[in-house]
């Protein structure tokens, strides 16, 4: 299950990817926080995605996780559009026969999603302003022309 969705994410839906022989499943959910990293109070986030490329990237990340950690099942769902504080922006599930591989694969998948899935977020602040926020790792997997993460690009408001 590799999806970009516009409605609320139900983490339980990702359990359908667990296979009958799996003994452990690890699910990560990323939740919209009430404060930005710099402490500014946030009213919500707006996400957008380059959808076909994002979904393809999810599949590639899952294939890489299987190469690295063995026989794991992976599901990745990311929400786009307007999200309020406390809502789930992303859910990643990894399951395997044993828990070690499931933990490692889940961690790898969310780290890579944040680093290179073509998805962007704009923070909306309580003072009415907004700004696009890149992840510290968010250089899309390496710099073609000198990529740089963590930058702030303040938008009109």
């Amino acid at each position: 299950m590799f999806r970009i969705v516009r409605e609320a994410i139900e983490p339980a839906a990702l359990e359908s990817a667990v296979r009958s022989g799996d003994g452990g499943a690890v699910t990560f959910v990323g939740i919209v926080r009430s404060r930005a990293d710099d402490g500014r109070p946030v009213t919500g986030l707006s996400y957008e995605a380059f959808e076909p490329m994002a979904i393809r990237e999810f599949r590639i990340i899952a294939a890489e996780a299987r190469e690295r950690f063995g026989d794991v099942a992976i599901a990745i769902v990311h929400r786009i559009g307007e999200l309020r504080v406390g809502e789930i922006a992303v859910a990643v599930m990894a399951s395997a026969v044993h828990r070690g591989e499931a933990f490692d694969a889940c961690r790898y998948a969310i780290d890579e999603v944040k680093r290179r899935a073509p998805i962007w977020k704009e923070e909306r602040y309580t003072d009415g302003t907004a700004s696009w926020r890149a992840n510290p790792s968010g250089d899309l997997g390496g710099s073609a022309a000198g990529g740089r993460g963590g930058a702030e690009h303040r938008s009109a408001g």
Partner: protein
Amino acid sequence: MRIRVLAFARLRELLGAPEITLELPEGARVVDAWSALAQGCSELDEQRASTRAARNGNLVAFEEPLADGDELAILPPVGGG
């Protein structure tokens, strides 16, 4: 040749549209498309160092040649999750 440009997030705002069509001379590369887009928009051009390009859905270098009918996506640093 004619290519379709997709822009996202801050780059979309600076370009003023999520998608525009460019006419470029034969032999044009990604960097030529960028120059055409950035012409007269210094704020967009300032984003060049942090921008990645995807040709038909695959990340490419700015030196990559383009072909008629290509889809070129310009991607600022990502912030998913």
